[in-house]
């Protein structure tokens, strides 16, 4: 029973983080800021949802597999984000900035 409630809470938090990430993906002004929003969904959202599933699965092989999925996500997500941001910078994108850019000489 307590485990059920914990699972509910965890999945709810994860779903909220994922929705916030999706919303940020729409609202943010440029690629780099969008990566920040997406990483909320990728790490916090995925982590809490998988934790919720783990509570439901109990101590079994299923939980171990969920842990493995989480480990793979956590190891690959930052590498993909880093590659994306680096490619965007090398591709000539200038990060959006609140302050107006220095006037060209």
């Amino acid at each position, binding site marked *: 029973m307590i485990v059920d409630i914990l699972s509910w809470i965890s999945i709810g938090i994860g779903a909220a983080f994922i929705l916030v990430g999706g919303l940020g993906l729409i609202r943010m002004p440029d690629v780099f800021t969008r990566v*920040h929003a997406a990483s909320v969904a990728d790490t916090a959202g995925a982590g809490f949802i998988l934790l919720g599933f783990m509570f439901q699965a109990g101590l079994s092989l299923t939980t171990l597999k969920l842990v493995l999925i989480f480990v793979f996500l956590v190891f690959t997500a930052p590498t993909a984000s880093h590659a994306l941001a680096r490619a965007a910078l090398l591709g000539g994108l200038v990060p959006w900035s609140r302050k107006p850019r220095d006037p060209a000489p």
Partner: protein
Amino acid sequence: MRHALSLFVGLYGLWLVLSGHYTPFLLAMGAACTVFAVAVALRMDVVDHEGHPMHLVGYRIPLYWGWLTIQIVLSALQVGRIVLSPRLRIDPVLETVPASQKSDLGRVIYANSITLTPGTLSTSVTADGIEVHALTRQGMDELKQGGMDRRVTQVEGES
């Protein structure tokens, strides 16, 4: 050799978790596959302290992961509040943060930790530091205080 043995144990453990069937025949086949995978890895020359960092295994890494998890949740909440606020309160900055790690592996752990934390994103790893894109000026200042840098150096330091 120690690395190859440890790689074998790790891969066989992974195979056991994914398989779920434990008859003698299948266990033997799994062992054969694992030996083949280790042999390929040895031929590729990736079984060293960098490709298979067994010297990091200890009590420090779980402690660091726990600390990092708390950081991730806290900064995810911060970024979530920014996204939900009607006026987007963002002030993105791109600056280089000093990194005190000695080895490439330590640098990679630091850069990955920065990217994993919502609100900060490493864009380039250079000789004198890590170039970071932060969502807010405040996030960049927190990173520059060096708490994460110090912890990563401690984790790396035992080698």
